[in-house]
């Protein structure tokens, strides 16, 4: 790489990107990592849809999914600390059972008790959600610590009820991050639903803007955020 390279134009994000775009970008990164980890656990390719961010009154959220009475298995997590956030991984009950069977494939079907299935589903949820949080935390250099996972098997609407009551208590507008994926072999989707609180949104957006606003190339032609690296070794790699 040429040492006297002219620095590229810096992107002025102040008015170009709003907070939600940045949130969506960070979330998409997290969702990508989550899907990769799911694929690694199941040894199977996983399709992922482009994630979306919905901004709407809390009582209209069930209309996005239209899964009213379907019985689902949801692994639920919250963030510890001041910045609150509810995260859920949802699979239909039949699909989650299939996934559990894939996870405990070494054991025969008779040995796979319902307790073991529950535990496997919870574990899978924990892995996926933690990698989602890890990716976001790594990118934004924040600390995101979650509570232990909680598995709930109930109909979709009644699970969303409690969370939406909480959203409605806080504000009249809920922000929902919605990522969907499915196994190649099956036809039912899994959902990764996140309700970031106002505080977390602001925190992530601030960090994301900082990252976008920085001078992309320093004088010697290297990305400025590679502080930890010795410039010589980086050049050698390139």
């Amino acid at each position, binding site marked *: 790489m040429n040492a006297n390279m002219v620095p590229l134009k810096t992107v002025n994000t102040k008015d170009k990107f709003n907070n939600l775009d940045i949130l969506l970008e960070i979330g998409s990164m997290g969702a990508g990592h989550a899907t990769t980890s799911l694929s690694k656990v199941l040894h199977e390719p996983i399709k992922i849809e482009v994630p979306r961010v919905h901004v709407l009154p809390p009582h209209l959220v069930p209309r996005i999914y239209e899964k009213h009475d379907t019985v689902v298995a949801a692994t639920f997590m919250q963030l510890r600390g001041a910045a609150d956030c509810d995260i859920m991984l949802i699979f239909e009950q039949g699909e989650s059972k299939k996934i559990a069977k894939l996870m405990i494939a070494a054991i025969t079907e008779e040995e796979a008790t319902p307790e073991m299935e529950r535990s496997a589903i919870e574990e899978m949820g924990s892995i996926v959600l933690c990698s989602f949080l890890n990716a976001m935390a790594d990118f934004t250099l924040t600390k995101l610590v979650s509570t232990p996972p909680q598995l709930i098997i109930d109909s979709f609407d009644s699970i969303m009820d*409690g969370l939406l009551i909480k959203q409605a208590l806080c504000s009249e507008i809920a922000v929902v991050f919605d990522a969907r994926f499915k196994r190649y072999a099956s036809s039912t989707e899994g959902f990764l639903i996140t309700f970031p609180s106002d505080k977390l949104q602001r925190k992530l957006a601030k960090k994301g803007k900082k990252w976008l606003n920085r001078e992309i190339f320093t004088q010697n032609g290297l990305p400025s955020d590679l502080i930890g690296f010795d410039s010589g070794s980086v050049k050698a790699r390139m």
Partner: protein
Amino acid sequence: MPTNLLDSHDVRIEKTVSLVNIMELPKLDTRPTLRPQRTTACITHPQLSPAVNEVRVGMAEMKIENKPVELVTSVGSCVALCIYDSANRCGGLAHVMLPHSSIASNDSLPSKFADTAVPALAKAVREIGRQEACLSAKIAGGANVFLNLKGLGPAIGLKNVEAVKAALNANKIWLAAEDVGGSYGRRIVFNVKTGVVVVRFSNGEIKKL
């Protein structure tokens, strides 16, 4: 005496069976026959009744009907409030989300809050009937689906139920039946014509109110 009678009866049956030639038996019709839909079926199995239209009531919504339809909603910590007018055979269902309207300001949906949903629904049901209304209410919901949800007390379901009951008391509407609490979500089917409410839990249990 009774034993003798029984014996003779048995013998007679044996005789008739032996006399019948198997070849002469009429052929059984194996084709599926169309049976008329029984009305009792829709009460025990609300999903198996195609004859009655289902109208879904969304979250924080309210619907009033005087046609023979079933109003359907699913609740967890929310409360489903059914008000039935036995004089005009009509009724309405409201999906109540929060106990008090003081929490949020300038909200256009009265059915979202317990203290505004009860008078609004009662007024709407009274308006749809022709004769003087005779109202009764049935409520279901208020479950505690999440064990520990940070930022929301465990008793939000019970708070909702208490607020709805207080509002019913204040509006002088008789509470005919209730099914509240627990830790499972409910699917509520309210038959507007008969006033019967069927509650189906997500673990398969069915209750009739």
